[in-house]
């Protein structure tokens, strides 16, 4: 048996006296599409920050493909094949879309901190950049400064940068927040295509998206996982209903 892609063991995180993540243990298998849902403030983004190395856990461990990564700086974790997106767009605002994606590509193409060769010299980098742009339908906006992109495209770019490095484990934090219906559909499609054969962990409040994408759903409430099961089970889980979905819920209700 291979090690799970991601494995959290007794993970805890406190800020001062506030215990935000409380003894979370969770295994996510390779190739799984895993969704994390939960009320606002439950600690979903915090959990992502712990996994991606932005925060160090108060106690407990995180392993990626069996290697311990808690305490490792984010860029090392990224090099080990884990990539994440942010809840608020976090792109290189003054650079063009193409440059944004190219920066995401560089490291995986072995460019390192090189200052003796041109970025344009490497065909592989150029091609990979183009592929990603095409994949995310950003080709025709490639030379626009990222800051001028419409919101939905910024979110797409956020995803593009995240997948550019070819990471095997991808963490997406509310990728469709603030999108309209049709935009959401496009984004879901993009996510599905980009994470083919990879491990995906996604946080979303849009139940449509979640039930559409996820193989398995974990529900995080006040820093604790109260349920972790396939969508069909979650839908019927009374505890989850009470804590998160409420009685209105499911499925789409937005215009």
């Amino acid at each position: 048996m291979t090690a799970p892609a991601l494995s959290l063991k007794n993970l805890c995180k406190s800020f001062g006296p506030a215990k935000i993540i409380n003894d979370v243990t969770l295994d996510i298998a390779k190739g799984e599409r895993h969704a994390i849902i939960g009320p606002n403030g439950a600690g979903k983004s915090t959990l992502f920050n712990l996994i991606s190395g932005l925060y160090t856990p108060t106690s407990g461990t995180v392993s990626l493909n069996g290697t311990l990564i808690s305490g490792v700086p984010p860029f090392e974790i990224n090099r080990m094949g884990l990539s994440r997106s942010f809840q608020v767009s976090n792109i290189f605002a003054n650079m063009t879309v193409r440059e944004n994606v190219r920066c995401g590509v560089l490291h995986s193409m072995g460019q390192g901190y090189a200052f003796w060769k041109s970025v344009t010299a490497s065909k592989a980098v150029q091609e990979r950049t183009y592929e990603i742009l095409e994949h995310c339908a950003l080709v025709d906006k490639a030379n626009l400064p990222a800051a001028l992109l419409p919101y939905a495209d910024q979110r797409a770019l956020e995803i593009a940068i995240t997948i550019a490095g070819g990471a095997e484990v991808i963490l997406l934090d509310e990728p469709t927040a603030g999108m309209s219906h049709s935009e959401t559909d496009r984004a879901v499609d993009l996510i599905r295509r980009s994470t083919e054969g990879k491990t995906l962990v996604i946080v979303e409040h849009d139940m449509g998206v979640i039930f559409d994408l996820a193989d398995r759903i974990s529900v995080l409430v006040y820093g604790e996982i109260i349920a972790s099961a396939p969508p069909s089970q979650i839908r019927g889980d009374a505890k989850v209903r009470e804590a998160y979905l409420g009685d209105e819920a499911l499925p789409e209700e937005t215009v």
Partner: protein
Amino acid sequence: MTQPMLQVKDLHAFYGKSHVLRGVNMEIMPGEVIALLGRNGVGRSTTAKAIMGEVAPKGEILFKGQPIAGLESHKIARMGLGYVPESRDIFPTMTVRQNLVLGVKDMKNPGKYNIEQMLDMFPNLRARADNPAGVLSGGEKQMLTMCRTLMGDPELIIIDEPTEGLAPMIVQQIGDTIAEIAKTGVAILLVEQKLSIALRIANRVYVMGHGEIVYGGTPEDFATRDDVRKEWLEV
């Protein structure tokens, strides 16, 4: 006949060269809850910003009969208009309490709400009252923004997309809160996408399309207007 709380007549607004509002007309009576619906990008937020003076308005805006178009934001606010922007804009380095204090316009005559009431209304906030607001979760931030605006004792609140990015449970809770606030006699202009809440709490509904108001009526009437819904709201 009572005077309308807010009257907007032939309002235009621009972002650079793009003409976003093309003659918006609407009216809000005291104590009324109005839902402003429309697809993404039709200009609902811009309408709110133009009223609040954040975007330069062209046209007439009367608040309690007085023209406010073109005034500076703080003057508009002092006349009794509250605004909860889409971006929430909590003050991240300050504590929840300090955020609330800042909602008060004049320390000498505080409004009808005080901080304790607010914290009672949202236990989540009480638990974080002395934390910097920047670390609040998305939903907590939304609650805080609304409370902060209430602290200024407004007569009309414009709330832009209060439920965006919130868990389904909280969405309901926010809806209830808004209804609650409305009961105290504060008029509300609610910019929303989620029909269910909008229809539940609104007295009247406006629908916006391409920078104009394309429909106005009661929720009951709106429920019958499949044509409006098809043309202006659905994709």
